[in-house]
């Protein structure tokens, strides 16, 4: 297998960054899954990351508008992380998902989910409080799910498990298809690329990214509604 020096460097950087945090917090043995005190420094409630401003407005409530779908992002989305695993800026990801839904006449409400870092449960949670019953979950590295509230959490309408092959047109199509499900139409599932080398090439990095992402979860904190503005 050809070793990609850039990727290797990125992994090394991620590992080193992780070690530093551990050292700073006194080398706690369970940095990522502790319930109350996340090992990562607390995130500011509002932050601008390269083109998108996301402000927390308070706990996310159950919606009643049948024209809305709910998009759940993780605490690190567009804060600690700024791009997906293949360096697509999070602002562009949000913009495309928004555009896909808007083209279909559907509005997206964004929430930040703290209690889990599992994209299936995030999306299912979003679907349960969505007025249309359709939710989307997107992790910082790009892994995405379209969910419906009556399904089991580990079931889904459409799953995009290979984060390295999800590009901007795919994010646009995810927004569009979620909107079509909300309208009761029967969309053709989003065509995705399949790269058999994605797993061997990115698995190490994906694991590190997930470890870091999971470090931000706070099981006692309710999901927060976000106001999103692009600039």
């Amino acid at each position, binding site marked *: 297998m050809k070793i990609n020096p850039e990727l290797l460097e990125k992994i090394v950087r991620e590992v080193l960054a992780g070690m530093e945090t551990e050292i700073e917090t006194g080398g706690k043995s369970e940095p990522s899954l502790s319930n109350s005190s996340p090992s990562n420094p607390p995130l500011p409630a509002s932050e601008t990351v390269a083109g998108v401003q996301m402000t927390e407005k308070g706990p996310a409530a159950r919606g009643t508008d049948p024209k809305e779908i709910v998009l759940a992002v993780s605490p690190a989305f567009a804060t600690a992380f700024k791009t997906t695993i293949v360096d697509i800026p999070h602002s562009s990801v949000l913009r495309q998902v928004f*555009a896909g839904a*808007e*083209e*279909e*006449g559907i509005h997206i409400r964004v929430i930040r989910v703290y209690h889990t870092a599992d994209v299936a449960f995030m999306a299912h949670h979003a679907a349960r409080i969505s007025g249309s*019953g359709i939710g989307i979950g997107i992790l910082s590295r790009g892994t995405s799910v379209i969910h*419906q509230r*009556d*399904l*089991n959490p580990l*079931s*889904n*309408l459409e799953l995009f498990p290979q984060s390295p092959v999800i590009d901007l047109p795919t994010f646009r199509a995810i927004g*569009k298809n979620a909107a*079509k*499900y909300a309208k*009761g*139409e*029967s*969309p*053709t*599932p989003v065509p995705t690329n399949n790269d058999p080398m994605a797993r061997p090439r990115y698995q190490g990095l994906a694991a590190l990214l997930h470890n870091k992402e999971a470090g931000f979860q706070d099981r006692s904190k309710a999901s927060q509604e976000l106001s999103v503005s692009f600039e």
Partner: protein
Amino acid sequence: MAIVAGIDIGNATTETALARIEGRNITFLATGISATTGIKGTLANIAGLRSSLGMALERAGFKRDEYKAVDLIRLNHAAPVIGDVAMETVTETIVTESIMIGHNPSTPGGVGVGIGVTILFSDLSRAREGDSVIPVVEAKHDYEAVAAGVSDALSRKVNVAAVICQSDDGVLIVNRLPRVIPVVDEVSAIERVPLGMRCCVEVAAPGRVVSLLSNPYDIASLFELSPEETKQIVPVARALVGNRSAVVIRTPLGEVRERRIPAGELYILGPQGKRTVNVEDGAEAIQNTIVACSPVENIFGQPGTNVGGMMERVRRTMSDLTDIPVGDIYIQDLLAVDTLVPQKVVGGVAGEFSLESGVALAIMVKTEELPMQRLARATSQELGVEVEVGGIEADMAIRGALTTPGVKPPVAVLDLGAGSSDASFMKTDGSVTLTHLAGAGNMVNTIIASELGFEEMELAEAIKRYPLCKVESAFHIRQEDGTVRFFDKALDPGVFGRVALLHENDMLQPLMLPGINVERVRSTRRKAKQEVFVKNALRALEQVAPGNNIRLVDYVVLVGGSAKDFEIPTMITDTLSRYGIVAGRGNIRSSEGPRNAVATGLVLSSIESGSRTKGGS
């Protein structure tokens, strides 16, 4: 005492009836059914025959391979062996100079009508105050930039009448403009849109269709056309009927025309000589010629055309299978059905599809007795059981059908199979007239597949066989008759929101075809069944009825695999009731339903012929 197996090798299934015969007493022991292997009437059938017979033996309490328990196997004289079905598209729509865009995107932007001159979006900043322009936007421009550019032009008093864009951005652009203008999006081949030409864009409100650009006189008013030019614009207007959005561009030579594809001629040989009919004249003309030539002796296609190729292919396949020289194979019936086939518009700018007319043809070949005898000999050697060829299928079907309670001669039997529709009529004195016609279940599949625009025959078979529903939530479906059904357990997420087929045991099979709805699939399915089965039922009864008068038939029994369909029997019953005929699905031996008629008939007829050939074993 003897055990006799009647085995009916059909185009799709091989059915067995196993019976014990003592003197003139017949006790039916069991039945078996399995898929036919290979083409009916060839040596490849033996595998299917074994499994069908094995199933019957097992049900009767024998071992699966205890073929020796059977004293005599009677096979049907499978007269029609091969039916081929083909589609011929006979029209195509051609657009020259890209003068219209009528691809019907699902979400165009804005609403209204805009008239102006087409310019590139990058040239919009150079447009002057008062100009009426329609920018043409390639996919490389982001919707924010497009909206900003158009807003800027509008603020400079440039009249941006409408927008034509390549990506799916219509609604996004309109949402960012100070006033609503029509935007047609998803124009895939945008580089072919002529620039600097007068153009009209119309987008209708949701749920409505374009009214201006589908009316030739409105187009004439918009572009100041002369009466002669208006005549030429009619195909454009026609092509845009029913769309939610449309674009018409005026160019010096652009036009839309419908071309008839030379599909070839059919030569039909009858007792009065040869008649010629052109395939592009449509199904009715072909069918009239067939009737005029009846009884048909042979049919040829014009050499070097599609139809000629189809006829020769069937002859060759048939000849390869049976070792009969190509020249001795006679095509004895043909059924043509008009269909509409979605075809890509030639020269279209946005990948438009147009419903072109086509003709589906089913043909049937009459075989000699030779291959059947060969099959009988081979079966006898394989299984070590005496095998005889029993009788003609339709004749056997009528004997089987007579075991249905409530039926007595004179009676007509329609055997609706996969490859052919057979009819026989038995008079009170027991004499039988019969006919074999081309076109049955397989032809319905072909029509469904081509009208809905897919290739997989298994999917067409499923659409033919199962009713439709729309999955409206994870817990309920709306069936095609409008009734709602609830489920206790959540349905599979793969069917959520989709049109699906409702199989037995409530299994749902989602239909993954683009842009379909329940109503369209249902009407296609029903039309195909009407055109093939109802038409063939009338055609067949006309041929076997006394004096060729359908009204002289009192009872019609439907048998065969297609008689098990959930709507074909009711369609036929409905149509025949207008002739005062009692028609319905048979119930062979009060227990088998419409299946097993021929196999049962083969066993029953063994008492008459059996005593002669077997000499009382």
